[in-house]
């Protein structure tokens, strides 16, 4: 446990908590727009940004943010102008970003290990100024993402309606793109640029297995995100000698695998309980003999049907009628 009091570990834990909270906020809006892979696209573009930083000897964090924001705005503009749809725009940026990054790094003569820090994350080597930058940017993402949630929700839910409601669609679209770019660079040190999108999307995918509203999804995905990033970091540091980045992502995926069947079961049960339409049965269809009496503990789900309940029994609907049951 001594490791937890070491300076580098404390810095790593702070970064993990802030990243875990911020990334799913933007991820929720991306999933809502069905642009789950946008984080990946921006992450690839940010590789070029990191390479530029390494080439010019400036902070790779700042060059990554600048290039990622530029890339995100380009994706948004291509999408808006309708020359190519969203996923083609993403694909173009994907390839350009990663190829540019590798090329520039080779020109700069940097060792592969330096770029790898950013590709796969190196949360334990994070410096004090980097922690401050991470905290500030993550807080900014959370404040904007939660504070403007009514507007961002409306634009992502139904763009045409939002426009007729008088919202500046282009502003909010670019804002989400910029927030995504900032989150990518914030999470870059934690899980790495190649896995960055996982921390944005997987908690949302997990949360929506169990939620029925947008707000619940947003809050639950933030909690899941912080659980995964903090838990993954601790697991990597205390239990096994493995890199924290992939551990965080695998932990988030494990949460998804656990909630998936649970969500399917809950949805099924919820759907089963929906009352049947109050339509009179076609005829009085009496059941000859019934092996047992339906009741609270008979194991057959009871579903409201008008003024009574129908028991679901082997694909039939049994309605109590006097001393016998009717087929409904």
């Amino acid at each position, binding site marked *: 446990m001594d490791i937890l009091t070491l300076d580098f570990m404390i810095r790593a834990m702070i970064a993990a908590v802030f990243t875990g909270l911020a990334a799913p906020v933007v991820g929720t809006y991306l999933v809502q*727009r069905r642009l789950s892979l946008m984080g990946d696209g921006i992450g690839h573009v940010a590789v070029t940004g990191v390479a530029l930083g390494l080439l010019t000897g400036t902070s790779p964090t700042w060059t990554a943010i600048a290039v990622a924001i530029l890339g995100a705005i380009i994706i948004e503009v291509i999408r808006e102008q309708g020359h190519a749809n969203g996923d083609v725009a993403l694909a173009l940026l994907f390839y350009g970003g990663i190829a540019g990054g590798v090329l520039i790094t080779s020109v700069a003569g940097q060792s592969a290990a330096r770029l790898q820090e950013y590709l796969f994350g190196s949360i334990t080597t994070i410096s004090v100024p980097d922690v401050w930058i991470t905290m500030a940017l993550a807080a900014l993402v959370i404040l904007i993402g939660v504070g403007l949630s009514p507007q961002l929700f409306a634009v992502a839910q139904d763009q045409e309606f939002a*426009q*007729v409601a008088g919202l500046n669609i282009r502003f909010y679209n670019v804002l989400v793109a910029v927030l995504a770019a900032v989150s990518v660079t914030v999470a870059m040190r934690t899980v790495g640029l190649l896995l960055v999108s996982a921390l944005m999307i997987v908690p949302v995918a997990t949360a929506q297995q169990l939620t*029925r509203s947008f707000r619940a999804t947003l809050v639950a995905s933030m909690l899941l995100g912080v659980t995964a990033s903090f838990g993954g970091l601790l697991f990597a540091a205390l239990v096994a000698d493995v890199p924290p980045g992939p551990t965080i992502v695998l932990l988030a995926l494990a949460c998804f695998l656990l909630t998936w069947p649970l969500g399917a079961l809950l949805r099924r049960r919820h759907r089963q309980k929906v009352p049947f339409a109050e339509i009179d049965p076609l005829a009085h269809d009496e059941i000859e003999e019934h092996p047992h009496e339906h009741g609270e503990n008979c194991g057959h789900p009871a579903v409201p049907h008008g003024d009574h309940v129908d028991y679901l029994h082997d694909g039939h609907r049994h309605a109590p009628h006097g001393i016998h049951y009717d087929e409904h």
Partner: protein
Amino acid sequence: MSLSDTTAPDAVLTIENGSVAIGGRPVLRHINLSVRVGDFLALMGANGSGKSTLVRAMTGLRPLAGGHITMFGSELSSFHAWHRVGFVPQRSTAASGVPTSVWETVASGRLTRRRLLHPLLPKDRRAIREALEVVGLEDRARDGISTLSGGQQQRVLIARALAGEPELFFLDEPTAGVDLPNQQALATALSTLKERGATVVLVAHELGPLAPLVDRAVVMRDGRIAYDGSPLADHEVHGPLFDDGHTHHHHVEVATRDHTPHVASPLDIERNEESR
């Protein structure tokens, strides 16, 4: 169409010689239309006749290639009082990538009246609840929107437009793919609006249960207004008068009938004179 018609003093929306081009091809031409306070206007016509495009032009979603649109007395490009307008877009579903409750969807319609970064006020919540009551879905408020039927989702979208308490409604094919009971529920909601004095512009193929509410029909044909007057029955819209397939039989008649002064005109003049 006379100039006095398009500049009626009680007009909430006026289009003067409007045209819309998509990809350089003129789609809507010579559109002159004046929607007056309290109108319940059905915009009808065949697929591709331009009725949805016209609604998109009126709501500012599609820019005009020529002409002018005046909304509540100001040019559409400089119009900012969007809380006076409610829009129900053409949708097959109201669901998106993230689970959304009925209440949240309707609440987003309140944005036109909310100030930035301010929480929902009691009056906002009241408006949202009332909007849900008008469409008869108050007991489904907490349910996920994807669990509702298509007709119920359409009613949610109407409630969303209602939540902003607008004066002028645009509904783009609200009855498309909706069963009769849901169309009737929709008609009930819209008649409530009409009683409150709202102005409604409705795009529809077939009016069905909405027919008794409509007091003015505008029929589009090939991007132009072919008829503007008292309500037509569903079969008349596609009847010989407006059906291209029959024009070669009745060529002369069509040409003359197209220019028959519509029924609304004399009433308009009276109305205009009254308000003077």
